[in-house]
């Protein structure tokens, strides 16, 4: 498995690299991005802006909004977010069925090693929680031959940023209609950034032979004309969504 580590890589670039690797690479990848420089809203592939965002505030404050290629919900990411991604061939993990629930279960067993003895960690519905407070959100995309599972970890977050997000209609049952600040918690209260990243790499090493890869090597190796679907939504699209209630 190739390991790529970044610090502060813009989230659009990270997601486009991931989408390209999923669609064009035959190798396995682990990508870790320690924070992303600019606060950005990231919606899943089917997200409806009017349902998920306070569009007026988003437009007023010019917060960038990305629609990513994986499923799942909406997050606002910033320098306090740590991203960990696994892109695997279907045979990479022995006896793992390439469907959402088995992949989610596999990922939680990996992170159980990272958080062993810390904070009552578990996978709750599809979120990583300490107790009943979410600190990690997951999303996946599954193709005929590969899958990606990526997670945004709330090492820290800015409470003001949460105000850009509405309470989602499709929320896990354990959320129990709690507002953002009552629902989520900070990983920094349990672990330092470097400890978390080191332990994650160590946990990955128990299953894969890791070798470091540089971004430049990835870009040069791409032989296909691949056009990612992950993109920013334009102001016009957000305004139209607000008007149409979508």
């Amino acid at each position, binding site marked *: 498995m190739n390991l790529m580590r970044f610090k502060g890589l813009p989230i659009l670039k990270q997601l486009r690299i991931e989408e390209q690797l999923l669609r064009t690479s035959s190798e396995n990848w682990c990508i870790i991005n320690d924070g992303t420089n600019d606060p950005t809203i990231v919606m899943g592939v089917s997200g409806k802006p009017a349902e998920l965002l306070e569009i007026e505030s988003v437009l007023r404050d010019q917060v960038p909004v990305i629609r990513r290629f994986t499923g799942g919900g909406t997050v606002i990411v910033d320098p306090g977010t740590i991203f960990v991604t696994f892109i695997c061939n279907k045979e990479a993990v022995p006896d793992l069925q390439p*469907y959402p629930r088995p992949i989610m279960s596999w990922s939680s067993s990996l992170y159980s090693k990272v958080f062993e003895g810390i904070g009552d960690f578990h996978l709750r519905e*599809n979120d990583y929680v300490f107790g009943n407070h979410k600190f990690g959100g997951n*999303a996946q*995309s599954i193709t005929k031959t590969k899958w990606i599972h990526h997670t945004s970890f709330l090492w820290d977050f800015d409470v003001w940023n949460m105000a850009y997000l509405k309470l989602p209609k499709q929320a896990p049952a354990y959320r129990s209609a709690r507002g953002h600040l009552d629902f989520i918690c900070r990983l920094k209260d349990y672990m330092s950034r470097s400890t978390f990243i080191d332990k994650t790499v160590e946990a990955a090493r128990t299953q894969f032979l890791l070798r470091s890869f540089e971004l430049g090597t990835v870009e040069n190796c791409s032989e296909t004309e691949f056009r990612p679907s992950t993109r920013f939504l334009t102001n016009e699209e957000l305004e139209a969504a607000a008007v149409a209630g979508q």
Partner: protein
Amino acid sequence: MASTMLWASRAASYLRISVFHRGFSTVLKDLKYADSHEWVKVTGNAATIGITDHAQDHLGDVVYVELPEVGAAVKQGDSFGAVESVKATSDVNSPVSGKVVEVNEELSSSPALVNSSPYEDGWIIKVEMNDAAELKNLMDSEKYSKFCEEEDSKH
């Protein structure tokens, strides 16, 4: 579940459709199947395509279906769209090559049809095939049933 399966068997018998019950997933006799768990129903040059009961069961509740444009070309084995379930998008691949002539618009407002009626109301696209010989690359219902059993037993 048992009474539903009994009803289904009686209905299938009345309609002269053979139904295999492998575990809890249904396989219909007159369809062809891809190893990526899509089915195709062929009438002349026309193909109706969806995902199998095995696939919908493993994917979970479908909340969104990404449909291709009418007129788009599809190629056997290649992705033409996706379904979203849980937190995942999963590619849907075409069992045949040809041109999309119709998409199931109902799925935009009722994506759960893929779960509740994978072989009927949950159909995804209709294709005008351009190479009927490709059908030999697909599995019949018996082979597909065994394929699913082998896949499930490995995990």
